[in-house]
């Protein structure tokens, strides 16, 4: 498998570092690990890190402070790992510069999907920005929040969010159902497997004026789907 990027996992738990590194390597990434802030600095000095997976609770300098330092100095993409969802809400709210977060214990495949998405954003031609705006809507990809024109939060399920994120990152392109399935959830089976069509109809119900005559996410006959409006990326 071709190498997809160089990741740095920073976590104070040795077992998690090893397990996570093995898992990510199996999925084609080069992985370095560090137990704390100084270790992280050493790895970064060695160079060519593309993305940091950073635990919030670290001995010494904590994850928040490291995160602020990383995003400020180097503009490196960061995925934070936190113990509590509300904590994550606060972190991102404090504009610490994390690009995404996951709550422990997380689904490793979910982490893979997030890594892919963040790397895609970071290496894309568009400038980095957390807000994707379209048709009066704003999708905050670091907070996982969708807001209406009047600043009202419209809650999305995890599946709907992932699907919408894939769409807004490839606007005005025809996306096949297979591509959407792969991008949103890998090929995991089990009770969480939901077909793209169900997610799509739910998403349309939340963002379309008239879900039966969708104007934002259009169905392309024989091809798949297309996110019709232009998307503007803002910081």
């Amino acid at each position: 498998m071709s190498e997809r990027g160089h990741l740095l996992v920073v976590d104070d738990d040795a077992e998690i570092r090893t397990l996570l590194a093995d898992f990510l390597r199996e999925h084609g990434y080069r992985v370095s690990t560090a137990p704390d802030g100084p270790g992280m600095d050493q790895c970064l000095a060695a160079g060519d890190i593309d993305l940091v997976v950073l635990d919030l609770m670290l001995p010494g300098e904590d994850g928040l402070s490291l995160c602020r330092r990383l995003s400020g100095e180097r503009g490196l993409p960061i995925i934070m790992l936190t113990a509590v969802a509300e904590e994550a809400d606060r972190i991102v709210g404090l504009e610490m510069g994390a690009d995404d977060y996951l709550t422990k214990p997380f689904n490793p495949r979910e982490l893979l999907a997030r890594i892919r998405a963040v790397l895609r954003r970071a290496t894309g031609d568009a400038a980095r920005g957390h807000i994707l705006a379209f048709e009066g809507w704003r999708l905050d990809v670091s907070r996982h929040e969708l807001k209406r024109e009047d600043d009202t939060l419209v809650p999305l399920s995890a599946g709907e969010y992932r699907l919408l994120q894939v769409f807004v990152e490839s606007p005005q392109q025809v996306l096949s159902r297979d591509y959407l399935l792969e991008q949103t959830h890998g090929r995991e089976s089990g009770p969480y497997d939901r077909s793209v069509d169900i997610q799509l109809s739910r998403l349309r119900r939340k963002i379309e004026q008239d879900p039966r005559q969708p104007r934002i996410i259009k169905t392309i006959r024989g091809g798949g789907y297309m996110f019709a409006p232009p998307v503007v990326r803002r910081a």
Partner: protein
Amino acid sequence: MKWFWPATLAGRVALLLAAALIGIQLITLPYFLRQRANVVAVDSELLSLELRDRPPPDSHGDDHAELARRLSGQLQRQVAVAHQGDKTEVWVALERGSWLRLALDTRTPSAGWVVHMTAQILLAVLVLVVVSVLAARQITRSVRLFVSAAERLGVDVNSPPMPEEGSKELRQAARVFNTMQRRLQDYVNDRTRMLAAISHDLRTLLTRLRLRLEYIEDPEQRGRALADLEQMDAMLASTLSFARDDANQEQPVRVDLAKLLYTLVDDFTDLGHEVIYRGPESLTVVARPLALQRAIGNVLDNAVCYGGRAYLSLDSSAGQCRIFVEDDGPGLDNEQLEAMFEPFVRGDPARNRGTGGTGLGLSIARSVMRSHGGDVLLANRPEGGLRVELTLAAPFAA
């Protein structure tokens, strides 16, 4: 309290002082009246005393014939008594046809002084009432300060401390109050730190297990292990959330409540449950979305777990937002209803239900809804099954 006993401190102080004043006036009244009687007698002063060489004019009737007759008997002289306007004239016949005329001011003491005195008392009472109400206001203002500080503390232990100012007693009381609040804060913060530590350690272990799961080849075993893990995580999350009182940690935002309910319905549907939603397509409120999601999710959990199928509805009439969760299950005994809100109490006594749950669901839901100025109410439906009403006094967004 009785009808005459005012509810407010200001009213009571005013009433007591007014009663005291009137009491004092009543006690001194007899003495005052006696004094007044003397004053009346002295006031009947002699206006003039003169010798006349002619008798009183005939126009003088005998207004006081009896008095005149008796005076005449005593003096052995002819006497005439007559009213003349405001004065009374007494004529006494002297020698050689001359008369002594005594003019007395005998204006009857008018009722004026009674009115005067009553007015004086009333005025004093009025002044007293006004002053005492103002004074009591001053005192009760500080009591109200304490009331609002205690209320704020009840909602949020980290609310700002009371200002230590004003009178000596007030400063002292405020200081004691603030010390109490600091101790509470210390206690809560210690507990939060401890819970964070436990949470961190347990989640580290759960994270390891979750990663190891990826290496289990047998899909059935893998699925079961995954389910166990998720149940454990959910129990840990609800216990910690209850203990840390998460409801108050999230910032309120404008959120589309109807869409939030749709999301919940979809999540439950994906887990294989039947949840039917009836209500508006969109309803914007100001609330804490994560907390609400947890509260309503907990109630839905119960409904699908004990009742099989759940009916979710939203109603925003009468300036209040009401969310109903109903099920077709067996419902609960009436005496059980309120006990369900106690932490760690569960509908099934054996605590061995395979569905998991910690018995915290409704406690958390109630704490969340109360933090939104609402509540959670349980009732058995007449047609069977349980009906849970979650109310929300959150301000509606314009």
